[in-house]
């Protein structure tokens, strides 16, 4: 044992510091041990609750509901998680028994409470469960949750609404999806695909007629899931009336029918180079011989991207032989810049 008062101050300091560190480490180990023990105890408790309720929920799959014991409030959240996980594996039509069991156990009510009063994780769980139950009683709460700041929660609520009553939910979900740029467009498309084109098309067309700006441009990404025969006339009308280059360029992605050729040719001369690039690309997909002179003329465009796209359209044309290409360039009197772009592209392809 060191006599601290008699020892060198540095030694005394080191002695006290090491003692403090030792105590701190001991304390930390105790905390880690306690947390570990708590986690194991929780897992064990969850296992016990699930072992009790799982067979009952499984029996409910058979049709007739079993005799359920009272569900204590402290078990409710665990049973909700179990119910949700089980329901996810079954198709809607196979969930009837589980849904009846949930209603008997008043899990629908518990989920509604969680949706409004729970923490984020619980609210997500509640939205998923209410969607799987197709619970009309929680409609207003789910609509409110669609406007939540948290994107995942709002999308879960949107999906629940679509599962509950797709026709009624579509206007709410579409408006939110167009407004909320942070909703991944792929996930929005997946949700709408589940509903199907027949229901999605009317509200989509309605919004295509009316929305503006970024919402309109975002809407263009949703068009592939609609019935094309119905959405096309609305899109063309909107396109012809639009002056917004970004919207026009986006809309041109959806054009590619032979009857679009004349319209596409017009857009090849548009003042915005973004539109010209997109129009040449769409027109090239039609692979019509009569458009070759137009592509050759665009080789002299002031914008490099337009020249490149025009060169690609010429080189990718299925019936344009090298002598015919040369004759075309001569005939249109393509300048040095245009020929250079074409050569560059040819060289890069040879290299590849």
């Amino acid at each position, binding site marked *: 044992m060191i006599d601290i008062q008699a020892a060198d101050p540095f030694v005394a300091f080191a002695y006290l510091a090491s003692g403090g560190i030792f105590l701190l480490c001991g304390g930390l180990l105790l905390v880690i041990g306690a947390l570990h023990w708590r986690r194991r105890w929780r897992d064990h408790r969850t296992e016990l609750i699930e072992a009790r309720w799982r067979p009952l929920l*499984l029996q409910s*799959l058979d049709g007739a509901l079993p005799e359920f014991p009272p569900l204590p409030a402290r078990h409710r959240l665990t049973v909700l998680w*179990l119910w949700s*996980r*089980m329901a996810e*594996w*079954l*198709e809607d039509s196979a969930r009837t028994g589980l849904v009846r069991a949930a209603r008997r156990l008043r899990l629908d009510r518990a989920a509604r409470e969680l949706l409004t009063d729970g923490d984020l994780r619980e609210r997500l769980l509640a939205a998923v469960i209410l969607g799987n139950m197709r619970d009309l009683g929680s409609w207003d709460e789910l609509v409110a949750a669609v406007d939540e700041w948290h994107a995942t929660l709002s999308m879960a609520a949107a999906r629940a609404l679509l599962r509950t009553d797709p026709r009624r939910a579509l206007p709410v979900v579409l408006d939110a999806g167009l407004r909320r740029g942070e909703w991944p467009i792929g996930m929005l498309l997946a949700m709408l695909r589940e509903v199907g084109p027949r229901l999605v098309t009317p509200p989509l067309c309605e919004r295509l007629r009316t929305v503006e700006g970024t919402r309109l441009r975002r809407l263009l990404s949703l068009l592939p899931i609609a019935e094309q025969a119905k959405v096309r006339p609305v899109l063309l009308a909107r396109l012809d009336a639009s002056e917004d280059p970004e919207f026009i360029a986006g809309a041109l992605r959806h054009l590619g029918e032979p009857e679009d050729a004349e319209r596409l040719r017009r857009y090849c001369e548009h003042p915005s180079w973004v539109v010209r690039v997109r129009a040449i690309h769409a027109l090239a997909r039609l692979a019509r011989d009569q458009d070759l002179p137009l592509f050759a003329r665009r080789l002299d465009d002031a914008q490099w991207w337009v020249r490149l796209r025009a060169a690609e359209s010429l080189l990718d044309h299925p019936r344009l032989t090298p002598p015919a290409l040369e004759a075309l360039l001569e005939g249109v009197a393509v300048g040095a810049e245009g020929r250079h772009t074409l050569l560059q592209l040819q060289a890069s392809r040879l290299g590849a």
Partner: protein
Amino acid sequence: MPAPTSPAPVPLLVVEDNKDLSDILMHVLRRAGFDVQLARTGREAELAITEGAPPALALMDIGLPYKDGFQLIQLIRATPAWQQVPIVMLSGRNRREDIERARALGADDYLIKPFQPAELLSCIRRRLAARSVPS
């Protein structure tokens, strides 16, 4: 849920790693009169294939620990005693490539999760009936 139909339980091998789903499958299949052996990992399934008696049918997931469903199909088709065992895949993977790959390797049917128990049972019964008809 239909009542058990066959007097002697028909042995099935179910390979599924998810506890919730395997419980549902065991419940549905046992209620339908099957004798279900469960393997929770690719390794357990491998052991059942190499050392166990062949079941009447194998129902398998694709995403499994240690050995995936594709490898297990290959193993079953390469094991003489198991070669004739019908294989039904039950997977969340719905891409065409996965379905075609499973079929090319020797799977007889491919069902997608989430599933309909009645559809699963009818698929299994169809496969078993086809197997019992001598070629």
